[in-house]
């Protein structure tokens, strides 16, 4: 009897041992519900081909609710093992509260350039708390069939851009520019952050805002807003109620010629549009020699400090730094560009087009994110409102520039 009991105990405990040692289960928390298929059908199977004993579950929350619900779940101790990281302050806050582990000791971090690591490091650079994954980029998508029908060529400068829009408007069959101001973030991200780097000279201008050497009231910001204001002449009637999905529909149904875009659209557009489309880079100011592309560090993955599967989690995170992951990710989720330094083959033609711009233009990140994005009122929020109001014609470019500067000066010393 005693023997029986001890055998039972041993077998039970071995089951537990087996569970902890080999059958680790990792839960990834993410806001990228669009990518669920890619993770479940390609990325996780590829990982399991190497590490068959680690089960990985990809769990999503819709984007607008992600930050709030992650806070609640981390505080409540119910969050998954791996946390998908929003760049800069939202994730830095999680690290400061002790909810994310420092990943300095992780192998494979040399596979990233410094700019990629900056998005998820402490201000002094002493700790890295998320493994960088991918960036997104901006530009304009265009309907190739409409361009062919109207005999249009790809515009490079601001005046060429507006001349092209004029031709489409004169033809009268298509909406020249598919964007509306109902979702304010869309106009700010696809307008201001899209062509903006050409006005503020990329990294140089972005850093000058942080140091306070440039102000949002400087002429080039007013010029940028003036240029964006002109967009309104080419938008659909009633663009004030046009939401982001409305604009996507307008373009993918073949009713609009040009769509100011983010590269993340490539994936969904290639499924929805039944015509050929491609992309051209943000227009430059007339007479400008260099060009700049926004290539925003958008997504990373960190380790929940309360995870009970840290060993497995670190194995997974190290795998994320590999060329294998980078290549799968780049091709399964075209439009998200891996931040690794590995050279990668991308097959999607539109994604390739986006990547090719980086050969001729310098890259930068969104100018509202790093450091200047952490006060109240939130700089991103102000830019959303200002850009939309300027396009709606309820604010002049000068007023918009002044309002943006005033909101930053309100809390940020270098601007006071």
């Amino acid at each position: 009897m005693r023997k029986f009991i001890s055998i039972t105990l041993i077998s039970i405990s071995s089951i537990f041992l087996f569970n902890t040692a080999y059958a680790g289960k990792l839960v990834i928390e993410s806001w990228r519900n669009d990518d669920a298929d890619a993770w479940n059908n390609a990325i996780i199977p590829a990982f399991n081909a190497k590490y068959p004993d680690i089960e990985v579950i990809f769990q999503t929350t819709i984007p607008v609710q992600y930050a709030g619900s992650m806070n609640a779940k981390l505080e409540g101790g119910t969050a998954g093992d791996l946390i998908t990281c929003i760049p800069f302050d939202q994730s830095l806050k999680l690290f400061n509260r002790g909810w994310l582990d420092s990943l300095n000791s992780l192998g494979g971090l040399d596979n990233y350039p410094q700019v990629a690591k900056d998005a998820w490091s402490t201000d002094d650079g002493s700790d890295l708390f998320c493994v960088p994954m991918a960036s997104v980029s901006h530009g304009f998508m265009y309907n190739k069939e409409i361009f062919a029908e109207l005999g249009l060529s790809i515009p490079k400068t601001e005046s060429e851009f507006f001349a092209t829009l004029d031709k489409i408007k004169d033809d009268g069959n298509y909406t020249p520019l598919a964007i509306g101001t109902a979702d304010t973030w869309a106009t700010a991200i696809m307008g201001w952050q899209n062509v903006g780097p050409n006005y503020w000279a990329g990294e140089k201008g972005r850093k000058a805002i942080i140091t306070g050497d440039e102000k949002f009231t400087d002429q080039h910001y007013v010029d940028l807003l003036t240029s964006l204001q002109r967009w309104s002449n080419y938008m659909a009637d009633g663009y004030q109620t046009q939401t982001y999905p409305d604009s996507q529909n307008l373009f993918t149904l073949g009713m609009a010629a040009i769509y100011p875009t983010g590269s993340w659209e490539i994936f969904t557009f290639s499924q929805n549009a039944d015509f050929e489309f491609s992309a051209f880079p943000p227009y430059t100011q007339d007479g400008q020699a260099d060009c700049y592309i926004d290539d925003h560090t958008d997504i990373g993955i960190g380790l929940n400090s309360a995870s009970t599967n840290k060993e497995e989690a670190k194995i997974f995170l190290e795998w994320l730094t590999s060329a294998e992951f980078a290549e799968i990710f780049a091709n399964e989720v075209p439009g998200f560009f891996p931040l690794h330094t590995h050279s990668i083959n991308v097959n999607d033609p539109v994604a390739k087009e986006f990547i090719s711009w980086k050969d001729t233009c310098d890259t930068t990140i969104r100018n509202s994110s790093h450091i200047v994005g952490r006060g109240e009122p939130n700089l991103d929020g102000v830019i959303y409102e200002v850009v939309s109001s300027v396009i709606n014609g309820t604010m002049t470019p000068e007023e918009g520039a002044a309002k943006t500067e005033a909101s930053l000066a309100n809390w940020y010393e270098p601007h006071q």
Partner: protein
Amino acid sequence: MKKKFPYHIIVFLFPACFIYTIFMIFPLFDTLRISFYTQDLMGSNLDNTTGVRTFTGINNYRILFFDELWSYHFWNALKNNTYFFILHVSIQTPIGLLIAAFLSSKELKFKGTYRTLIFLPAMMSIVIVGYIFNLILSNLWGIPQTLLGAVGLENLYQPWLGLKETALITISLISIWQFVGIPMMLFYAALLNIPDEVLEASKIDGSNGITTFWYIKLPLIMPTVGLMVILTYVGNFNAFDLIFAIRGLYAGPEFSTDLMGTFFYRTFFGFQHQLGNPTMGATVASATFGIILIGVLLYLFAFQKRITRYQY
């Protein structure tokens, strides 16, 4: 005679009082408490066990009411919400009354069908209502243009939801559309409860339908109208879902549709790149709390006292 201690009263009351106190009263008062604290949003001076928040007295309220950054949003939301409420009372109540009056007419046929269909929108989720109206009023789908065009008025079309001047009215009308069934039902019930003798007497006096309604029925159901107004008030100052569903957290254009509820959500939970601010969120919530309380007290002490005189 000495009675046994009435344990059964405690048994009957305990479960409701317990749940209500823990999950309703305590959180409401705790919210009030948090609003007197402040905390570092980046969390750097926090450890998870002690000293999470520091006491600041009424400073948060000073910021909310007087600091330009916050006060603009507070007064703007309050103004919008008041307007929202006034529109509800002045449009929803008369429509509800009119329909209820028609439905309570004895000879009318298909009463049940009308009542069922008019009440139906009140049962629908805001998510559904918000989405469908967003599409109906969108410039691309062209419904208003088609409908106005049918009567030769297509020039009247405006992107109502997207214009600063009209967005709030449009959203109010959608909300009124959805909830008109509730006052209708309450007024209908009240009208049916008027004793027949009262109405018979007025018929003998020779008054017609309109005068009977105006001089006899309406004063008699005044308490119900008052109740409806105060319920609308409470509901309106809590409204959040509809704006969230139609305009998103920015309550655009330019915060022209911002109500106390959306302001609270934005502040407390944060949005996109803005970090949530729990203590200021609690302050906004407490201010809303105060506004509702003032309204309810005004109703209880002024309005209700005056109208009870008409009660039969």
